């Protein structure tokens, strides 16, 4: 049924439909509404789960790790500094092959402290072994959470999934969402049955010491599974379409890329704004398009290659920086085309919308305009040079 819902509420309601047995989280802006709502549901008896209050995100992540190790479906949500504080456990959860679903309300990283939206937090944890999915709007947010559980718990996958939603823009944004029914979700997502779990009658250990004779294979196995995820996601989205009537690609989304001369590559909610600009420029006869990356991990290099190989000018929008190097998404798009015969003439890189700096239509038009020029590397859009002057005398 279509409802007018706040993003955080939509996430909480979706998690409720997915019936986790254990939820543990520590509140942090702009994630707070999600876990507040879930805590309320548990307290009111509307969700049969244990909500474990903890003193930090490190503990929250440890609690859900423990729950999954004991064979129980679990959920947590965090943001920014919270995700960083979890990071040690984040790597462990993937290493132990535990199918956690985590929502990150994408937010900038300190210092300076900033509560607003960019994607530095999750992008910084891209190497942790998790699947990372970036959503554009609230309908996708709801739908990809449901798919996230099914993907994570797939016996051939058994990897945690991070659903990355832009803080405030989506967490605090309110729009029309078609909420699935409990029957639909129950049919699509059967109860979780762990392949392996901590059980006193059948003792085993998880995450033990793996010496040099074993460690490499554990990492290799995750790497191979990540490749398998690229095959599983299209089947998953097809199943989802049959069950819920909404169709997604799940890896990438192409918007007017087929005949485009200039294409912007981006992730998350900014893709909506870019689509509006694409329509506007198309109505003036400009051949422009958008390539939205949904799955950042695993990185769908083949799909990206196919989508961009005939495009002349590509501009990659990063909402994060790899300080001291190339912008993260841009370097991977470039790597995709290294040594290939068919490739864009230029792949420019833009750093946009850090710490909540608004990305306007004009910002996006400026990027399309700059794509007519020579290749740009890590160009900061909407930079204020007057703020860069220093005087310590």
């Amino acid at each position: 049924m279509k409802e007018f819902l706040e993003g955080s509420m939509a996430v909480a309601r979706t998690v409720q439909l997915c019936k986790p047995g254990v939820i543990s989280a520590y509140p942090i802006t702009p994630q707070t509404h999600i876990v507040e709502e879930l805590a309320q549901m548990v307290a009111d008896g509307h969700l049969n789960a244990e909500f474990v209050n903890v003193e930090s995100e490190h503990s929250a992540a440890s609690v859900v790790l423990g729950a999954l190790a004991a064979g129980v479906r679990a959920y947590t949500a965090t943001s920014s500094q919270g995700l960083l504080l979890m990071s040690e456990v984040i790597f462990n959860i993937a290493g132990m092959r535990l199918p956690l679903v985590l929502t990150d309300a994408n937010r900038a990283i300190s210092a300076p402290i900033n509560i607003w939206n960019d994607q530095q937090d999750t992008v910084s944890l891209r190497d942790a072994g998790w699947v990372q999915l970036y959503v554009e709007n609230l309908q996708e947010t709801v739908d990809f959470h449901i798919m996230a559980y099914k993907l994570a718990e797939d016996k051939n996958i058994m990897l945690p999934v991070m659903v990355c939603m832009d803080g405030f823009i989506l967490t605090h944004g309110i729009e029309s969402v078609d909420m699935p029914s409990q029957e639909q979700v129950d049919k699509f997502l059967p109860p979780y049955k762990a392949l392996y779990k901590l059980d006193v009658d059948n003792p085993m250990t998880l995450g033990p010491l793996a010496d040099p004779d074993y460690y490499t294979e554990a990492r290799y196995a995750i790497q191979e599974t990540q490749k398998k995820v690229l095959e599983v996601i299209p089947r998953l989205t097809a199943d989802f379409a049959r069950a819920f009537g909404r169709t997604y690609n799940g890896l990438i989304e192409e918007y007017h890329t087929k005949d485009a001369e200039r294409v912007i590559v981006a992730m998350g909610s900014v893709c909506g704004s870019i689509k509006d600009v694409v329509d506007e420029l198309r109505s003036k006869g400009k051949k422009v398009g958008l390539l939205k990356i949904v799955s950042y991990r695993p990185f769908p290099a083949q799909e990206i290659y196919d989508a961009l190989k005939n495009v002349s000018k590509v501009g990659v929008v990063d909402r994060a920086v790899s300080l001291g190097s190339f912008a993260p998404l841009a370097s991977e798009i470039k790597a995709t085309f290294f040594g290939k015969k068919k490739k864009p003439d230029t792949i420019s890189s833009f750093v946009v919308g850090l710490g909540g700096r608004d990305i306007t239509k004009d910002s996006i038009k400026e990027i399309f305009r700059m794509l007519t020029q020579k290749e740009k590397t890590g160009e900061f859009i909407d930079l204020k040079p007057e703020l860069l002057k220093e005087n310590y005398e």
Partner: protein
Amino acid sequence: MKEIRIHARAGQGAITTATLLGNAYFQKGMYPYAFPHFGAARMGAPMNAFVRVDSVPVRLRSQIYEPDYLIIVDATLMRGFNCFSGLQENGIAIINHREGVEVPKVGARQKTYVVPANDIAMKTIGRPLGNTALLGAFCAATGDLDLDSLNVAIKKRFAGKAQEGNLEAIKLGYAFVNDLKKSTT
């Protein structure tokens, strides 16, 4: 597409206002996107909430710089800050009356309605929260929404006495602007 910008201080109910307004449009089968932008993220700090609404799903996620409509919940914000920045040439502003705060001169085709929303709220809700009276005024001033849609939104948000009071507040806000319109034409 219509764009609405709400000026308030954190804690004055701007998000609730945007939610109610968005929900009223939603009841009409439109696609609203309501969202806040916090400044200092402290109670009392100036902040904005926005509603962008269209007959198709809204995709644009930027803030609103050239609004069709303004709702100014706290008129003291007009001191030293141009709340009218970017208002469309034929834009409409709904302002919560505040003793001693002057409303700036606007363009020939722009309209401003100063509504004693807090007085209405004191009478109907018993607290100086003029937001819903302003929304009633918004319906009369813009003609975009009828009170029925807003009524549904209020009923979904409030229960019991609060619901009664707010339903009365939107009615009085609506009537105030209607009377103002009649007396000027």
